[in-house]
């Protein structure tokens, strides 16, 4: 190869041409690109006084008649009011309803507040409440909440601000349905996008929405309670947990709740001066079991599973303490919580014993051959996979081979609903009324009708759960559900894992954000910046 010096190139005419033309092309391309980039409006200047919160997915619906995704519900609860509202201790308190009374065992009478206005200036009356519930009941509107209102027979408006709910039969859990947001009468059904959601009466109103990017709420100055201290809230959608942390560090986010890698929490404390708080929660993580499986239908096998999983260790190391080992679906924050339940501490020897008794001996003692193999399905989230792998190792020690399979949410959920699993792990969010046990464990709720995906059938439990929903006396209900929890703890159709703790990371200047056990963000109406009164 001839060794050409720089001089040689530039002395040659056409290589110089090529060079020149190439440089023109390059500079043109670069200039063009930066022109495009610069021409776009730079938005996202922080509106003064607005709080920026990060969430991991865009709310699909804000209209309370249609919102089923967590973020849609939580943001919706800032825009709409409901008759009753759960407080931070999970107790139902009146919001729009000034008073609520039981007229007979199947009728509720409600008196509304008279000082509530929608954001469009219209007063909120009983007609609006009646409309909201009726539009959900109307099959033409295809509301996903219609199933929840099955016990409701009719809504009767008995005055401008009075109405009655008539149920078909006594049904105590129905009261939980009174936490539905209220929309103005004659609101169109099924809004295609969140921005088309009807106006609400809540502390904030929808200001702007960039699909997939962010949703901005602004203060409702005419709110019937005290108007919020915050001028507004911007919810930025950042699906990636790492990016959320990085944005927080840069100061672009003021608040985030949950969905943080447990190991990042100490880092956030050390490196960002953030206020980090962990609080007891009600979200219940469990292992679901297919009770039609020949091996899993044996209760000794299920108990062996419970003995073989060291939940303490999992919570301590993988969750870094951001969970509490659970005894059952209902957490200690629930009014019906029963603490004298059968416990299943970590005891691998006992587990092996039970498996032997159940008729599944270990074919080679301590050797690699398992007693049997089961599939374990989980979602794609890192943390869930990690937990699954740790459980796999623990079960290996007692001779059970787990085939861990992780799926994207859509495929996972579809499999679970169809009953296509041996074991899976999932969480129940927003557990309020113990009647959820009916939904999960009653034998009438096999899929596709209900959520008894494991096909658990226990006549005694069935009877208790039916009673529980028909009786209205809370003390009696408590006793019934105590009995129910005892049965579930012994029979183990679910192996309880833990109740997640809520982790809230915020700038120290954000004050008065009160955590709710199910991750609600309602306290944003009281949140304020430091140095402001």
């Amino acid at each position, binding site marked *: 190869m001839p060794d050409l010096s720089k001089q040689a190139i530039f002395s040659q005419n056409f290589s110089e041409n090529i060079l020149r033309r190439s440089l023109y092309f390059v500079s043109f391309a670069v200039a063009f690109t930066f022109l495009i980039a610069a021409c776009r409006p730079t938005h996202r200047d922080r509106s003064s006084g607005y709080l920026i919160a990060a969430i991991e997915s865009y709310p699909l619906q804000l209209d309370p008649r249609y919102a089923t995704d967590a973020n849609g519900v939580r943001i919706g609860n800032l825009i709409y009011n409901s008759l009753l509202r759960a407080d931070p201790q999970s107790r139902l308190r009146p919001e729009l309803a000034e008073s609520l009374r039981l007229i007979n065992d199947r009728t509720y009478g409600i008196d509304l507040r008279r000082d509530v206005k929608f954001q469009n200036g219209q007063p909120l009356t009983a007609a609006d409440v009646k409309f909201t519930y009726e539009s959900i009941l109307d099959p033409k509107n295809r509301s996903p909440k219609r199933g929840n209102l099955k016990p409701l027979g009719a809504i009767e408006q008995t005055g401008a601000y009075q109405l009655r709910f008539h149920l078909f039969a006594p049904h105590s859990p129905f009261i939980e349905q009174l936490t539905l947001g209220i929309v103005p009468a004659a609101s169109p059904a099924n809004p295609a996008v969140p921005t088309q959601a009807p106006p609400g009466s809540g502390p904030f109103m929808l200001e702007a929405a960039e699909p997939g990017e962010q949703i901005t709420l602004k203060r409702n100055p005419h709110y019937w309670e005290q108007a919020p201290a915050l001028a507004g809230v911007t919810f930025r959608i950042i699906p990636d*947990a*790492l990016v959320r*942390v*990085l944005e927080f560090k840069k100061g672009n986010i003021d608040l985030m709740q949950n969905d943080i*890698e447990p*190991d*990042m929490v100490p*880092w956030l404390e050390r*490196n960002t001066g953030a206020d980090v708080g962990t609080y007891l929660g009600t979200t219940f993580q469990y292992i679901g079991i297919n009770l039609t499986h020949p091996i899993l239908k044996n209760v000794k096998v299920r108990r062996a599973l419970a003995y073989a999983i060291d939940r303490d*260790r*999992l919570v301590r*190391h*993988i969750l870094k303490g951001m969970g509490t080992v659970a005894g059952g679906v209902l957490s200690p924050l629930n009014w019906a919580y029963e603490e004298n339940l059968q416990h299943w501490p970590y005891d691998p020897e006992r587990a092996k014993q039970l498996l032997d008794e159940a008729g599944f001996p270990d074919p080679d003692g301590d050797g690699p051959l398992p007693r049997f193999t089961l599939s374990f399905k989980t979602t*794609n989230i*890192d943390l869930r*996979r*990690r937990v*699954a*792998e*740790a459980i*796999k*190792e623990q079960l290996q020690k007692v001779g059970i081979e787990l085939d*861990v*399979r*992780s*799926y*994207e949410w859509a*495929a996972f959920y579809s499999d679970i609903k169809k009953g296509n699993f041996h074991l899976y792990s999932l969480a129940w969010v927003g557990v309020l009324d113990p009647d959820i046990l009916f939904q999960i464990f009653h034998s009438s709720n096999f899929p596709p009708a209900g959520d008894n995906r494991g096909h658990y059938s226990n006549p005694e439990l069935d009877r208790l759960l039916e009673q529980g929903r028909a009786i209205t006396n809370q003390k009696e209900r408590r006793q019934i559900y105590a009995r129910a929890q005892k049965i579930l703890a012994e029979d183990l159709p679910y192996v309880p894992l833990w109740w997640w703790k809520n982790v809230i990371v915020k700038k120290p200047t954000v004050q008065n954000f009160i955590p709710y056990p199910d991750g609600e963000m309602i306290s944003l109406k009281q949140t304020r910046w430091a140095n402001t009164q």
Partner: protein
Amino acid sequence: METRFWLYAGAALLLLFTSVALFAPLVSPYDPLQQNLEQDLITHSAQHLLGTDKLGRDMLSRIIFGARISLLVGASTVALSLLIGVGVGSLSGYAGGIADLLCMRLIDILMAFPGILLAIAFSAVLGPGLDHVIVALALIGWTGYARLVRGEILSLRERDFVSAARALGCRPQRIIVLHLLPNLLPPIAIQATFGLAAAIVAEGSLSFLGLGVAPPTPSWGSMLNEGRQFLLVAPHLTTYPGIALMLTVFALNLLGDALQDRLGIQTAKRR
């Protein structure tokens, strides 16, 4: 002179990678699946030279076994792609006519999609798992070989030695295999080298997106995926697998380049 150096360098690196992959159980200090929750996220220690991951598994062992997975997926993908590609290309080139037209259309259609997109779509359909990844990657990788083979066969088809063989009554398969394909070995070898590199990166991408091998199999891509959340607290989780991946692909590219220079052939390199 210079090319030979690179040829040897690439081959040496590749040899290292292959032997590590093949002798993984002997070379690796620990079982890559063995967890130790109390020893998680160690950066470096005497017992764990490259540290541990979130579940306390030894990183060095996982990287060694990751080489095994990469090699397995890469080699199987290339083998399967070759099989399909040579088969379709031969058919297309030798038979001509409708078969040729259909095959070329099919190839055009498949090549109308960016490879990774198809791979993601295939993986989403087939679900997680090693064998699914291999099938998915092979289904997008065969087109290059098919075109190569077809081109060569088309140009050689009318040559004297082929006509002679036909006149002697040789069956087409025999003609193809014995007379036509041997000419193709050099360009195929080069294509296969780059194909192997591409397959390894593609498997990494799929595992990174959560679509590839199922946990707890230690694929470099899935290690990068798992380690990503810990980038700020434990960067070693992504650094070492990333370097391993990069070096392996680098070695393959070196080798492919050197082969190309030596054999003096320009083939389509990038998909």
